[in-house]
Structure formats: C-alpha cells, structure tokens
C-alpha cells in the first residue's frame, strides 16, 4: 500500500470522528439555547408574589400565576389517578399474557393511541365530556391527559415486568400464593423502580400539554379548585398570555414558561434518582 493512500485514509477517519463529535454537540445546542433564552427572559419575573398571586387585569402591573400552578397540579394529579392504576394493571396483563389474542390487540391499540395527536384527544374529550356535561371543566382536561398518559404507563410497566425472571414468580406460586398476591406482593414491588419512572416520565410529558386542554380545562383567570369548573393550567396560561397584545401578560407567560420548564426538568432528575434508589437488585 502506498504511503499517500494510508495518509488519506487516516485523514478521512479523523475527519469523520470530528464530524460525529460535532453532531453530538449540536444535539445539545437546542436544549441549552432554550434553557438559556427562557431563563434569561423569565428569571427576572419570578419572585414570591409571582407564585402566590393570580394575574392582575390589563393595565395593572404585577400579578402572578398561582391559579395556573394550582390548576396544573390538580389536573395532573387527577389524570394520574385515572391513568396509573389502569396503566399498571394493563401492563401487568400484557407481561403475563405475552401471546394471547387480547394482548396482541391491546398492545396494538396502545401503540396507536400513543401516536394519536394530542389535539385529537382534546376534541374527543370535548365531545365525550364537555358537551354532555354542558361546560368546560378541569375533570374533562384530566381525562384527556389521562388518555395521553395511559400508553406510556402501560408500556413502561410491561417492559419492566418482562425483564423480571420467571423464577421469581415460580418462587411465589410455590409458596401457595394466589395470583393477585403474586402480582401485588412480588411482581410489582420488584419492578417498582421501572414502573415509577414510567409514571414520572408520563407526568413530565403531560405537564406541558396544551392542545388537549384548549377545549376541556379551557382556562380561568381566577383561582378555582372546583374540578367541574374551567381551570387555568400553566400551558394554557402561556398560550393565552403570550398571544395577547399586552407586555405585562408577556412577562407572566415568560415566567410561567420558566416554571414549567423547571418542573419538567426536576421531574426528569427525580425520576433518575428514584430509578437508582429503588432499583431491586435481582
């Protein structure tokens, strides 16, 4: 082989390695840019008043996002209360019955559900709940978000439980445990870190959802805790106030964006910690 040829090949290899590094750095850039921009725009708006007051009417300065913060918490907690038990039990079924016909169809529909655009889920919740109940409500928003959470919880539960060795289940059955105890006392506790991380990721995912809430929770400029009434949430507040013509409201939207971003970041970090801490060593 000629020396020049080898040099060319070494150069090509080095160039490609540099390219790979460059692209992996480029993947981090959007996140850093978003963080930087939102922190820069939002950090000056956040203080104690911002967190505990509700928005002021146009023309008055100040005001906060207490109603949206509380609303988001309520809507998400109710969504989780609906989706988590359903999702975990569904995931248990799928991991226990890998080959049954029902498992095949439910796995397929879960996968399709995961791909349904969030706005479509919002519309469906509107026709199912808002119209029959004659009014926007936090509850209908929770249902829409629960539908979005469901596939994530089901699949993460299923994937986690599939990894548990069969010997564990056999040990439990051999002690004369009935099926439901095997599931609740052995299988779920052993997979709890994976299941919880799925739940947390699902919560982080829906925390920022706006589209399904547009025609369900709708938004509310006042503090409300009634789940049968319209309720403000962080994404709705950002959507409504950022598109308004008033500077004060833009500031609220920036501040709320930062809070939402921090919330999602913290949830992700917390998930990682839980997964590590509660992991059952098999």
């Amino acid at each position, binding site marked *: 082989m000629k020396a020049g040829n080898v040099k060319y090949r070494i150069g090509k290899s080095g160039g490609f390695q540099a390219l790979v590094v460059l692209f992996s750095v480029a993947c981090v850039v959007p996140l850093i840019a978003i963080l930087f921009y939102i922190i820069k725009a939002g950090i000056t708006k956040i203080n104690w008043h911002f967190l505990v007051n509700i928005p002021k009417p146009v023309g008055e300065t100040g005001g906060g996002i207490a109603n949206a913060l509380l609303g988001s918490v309520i809507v998400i907690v109710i969504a989780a209360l609906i989706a988590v038990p359903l999702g975990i039990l569904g995931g248990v079924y799928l991991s226990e019955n890998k*080959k049954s016909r029902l498992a095949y169809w439910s796995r397929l529909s879960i996968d399709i559900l995961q791909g349904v655009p969030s706005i479509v889920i919002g519309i469906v919740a509107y026709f199912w709940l808002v119209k029959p109940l004659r009014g926007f409500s936090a509850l209908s928003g929770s249902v829409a978000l629960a539908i979005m959470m469901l596939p994530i919880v089901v699949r993460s539960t299923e994937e986690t439980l599939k990894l548990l*060795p069969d*010997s*564990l289940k*056999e*040990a*439990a*059955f*051999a*002690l*004369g*445990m*009935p099926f439901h*105890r095997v599931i609740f*006392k*052995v299988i779920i*506790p*052993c997979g*709890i870190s994976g299941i919880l991380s799925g739940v947390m990721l699902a919560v982080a995912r829906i925390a920022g959802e706006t589209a399904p809430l547009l025609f369900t929770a709708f938004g509310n400029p006042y503090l409300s805790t009634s789940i049968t009434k319209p309720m403000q949430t962080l994404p709705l507040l950002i959507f409504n106030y950022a598109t308004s013509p008033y500077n004060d409201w833009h500031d609220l939207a920036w501040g709320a964006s930062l809070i939402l971003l921090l919330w999602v970041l913290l949830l992700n970090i917390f998930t990682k910690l839980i997964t590590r801490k509660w992991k*059952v*060593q*098999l």
Partner: protein
Amino acid sequence: MESTTIKSPIIRSKNFNAYFGNNHVVKNVSIEIPKNHVIAVMGPSGCGKTTYLRCINRMHELIPGATSKGEMLLNTEDIYSMHPIFVRQKIGMVFQRPNPFPNLSIYDNVIAGYKLNGIRLPKADKDRIVEHSLTRVALWNEVKDSLTKKGSFLSGGQQQRLCIARAVAMEPEVLLFDEPTSALDPISTSTVEELFHELKSNYTLIIVTHNMQQAARVSDRTAFFYMGELVEYDETKTMFTNPKDNRTQNYITGRFS
C-alpha cells in the same frame, strides 16, 4: 419393580401422564413414596423427571399448554381435586437456581409464605419460625446478625439454603427439590446434601438430580426415568448394585447419559 410394597405412602401416583401440548413427556408413571424418606429421581436430560416433580405440587399447569392426566394422591387426598394453593402450602419446592425475593430482607424471605399470603403472626412467633427454620438449614449462625439485609446479599449457596428455609418455614409435609445443587459450588453442594439427612426426620424429600453420585449419596430410594417412563424404582442400594433393567444398568455404568 413392586418388589417392596410401601405402607401408607405420603405421595402415590397411578398411571400419571403429563403433556406439553401434544408432547407426551411423562408416560404412565406409578410410584409410591414413603414418608420421611429421601427419594432421588434421576435420569438423562429431557426424561421428564423435572416435569413429574412439578406435577406433584401442580406447578406444571402454570406453563401455557401444559396438561396432565392420572391419579396423584397426597396421603389419601387427590392433589388434583384440591385447590393448588393448599397443595403448594403442603408440598414445598426448592428450585434449580436460588430465587430469594430480592425485595425482601433475609428475615422476611424466611416468613415470606406467611407474610406474602397475608397471614398475620405475633412478632414472637415470627422470630421463632425464622430462627428455627434458619437453624434447620444451618444458616442461622451465618446470618443472625444481618437478618435485615436483602436476601440477594448472600452467596449462592447461602441463598439456596435461605430458599430451603423459606420452604421449611411453611411446615410442609413434602419438600420437592429440582436439581437443587446444580448451580452451586462443591462446598455449598455438600452443605446442602448434609441438610437432606437432617430434614428427613420431619419431611419427605423428593430430589430431582442428573447427578448419579448425588442420588447414591443422599437418597433412600431412587427412581430412574428414561424417555418419560419410570424404568425402575427401588431401594437406592439395590438400584446401584443390582439394577433389574438393562437401561438402568447402562445409565449407571455411564453407557449413555
């Protein structure tokens, strides 16, 4: 084969068959197992010995497509008309690989049969059961200071003895062992084998093994399975010195394995 009749056997199967789908893996097995004895079940891989063992406490039927047919009695009760939950509480099982519950402490692993079944016991009773069971499997002195640690913290041999303690804690009548030492080192193996002699006084032990020497060392009676059939079943001494069937002789002398 019916050279010695057994008085009031604890396990008796008659024309027992087991299947995986259409695959006939245990063929017409009739066997009588005497109380407080160690029975070794040996045979080459795929001879149906493990499947037969798993039929005794109805673990076989947990596998999709697995079925069985024939008579299987515990004392005088038909195992297949009892509820599997009761069967498995009376007939304990220890598996090939140690499988302590990784989410439970050593203490809770021993009383798992009570705790996870929702049977509430006073603290004193639990302490007594844990100490007694761990002593029976010669593990108490090794773990008495680390009872709150997780079961997976122990070595493989200790984990296997913990699993035996877990089965013993339920005070079963029969203990089934599915190749209990095949995942253990020689020292742990001999510790477990010594236990068999200890446990014999209170329980009936049925041990599946592919290790002939082990069968010869630990058992009072041996059953030899080949291609799903029970070829020979006799006193271990007789079996290893004077087998009646050609196939047994060939297996023991290592002409096939």
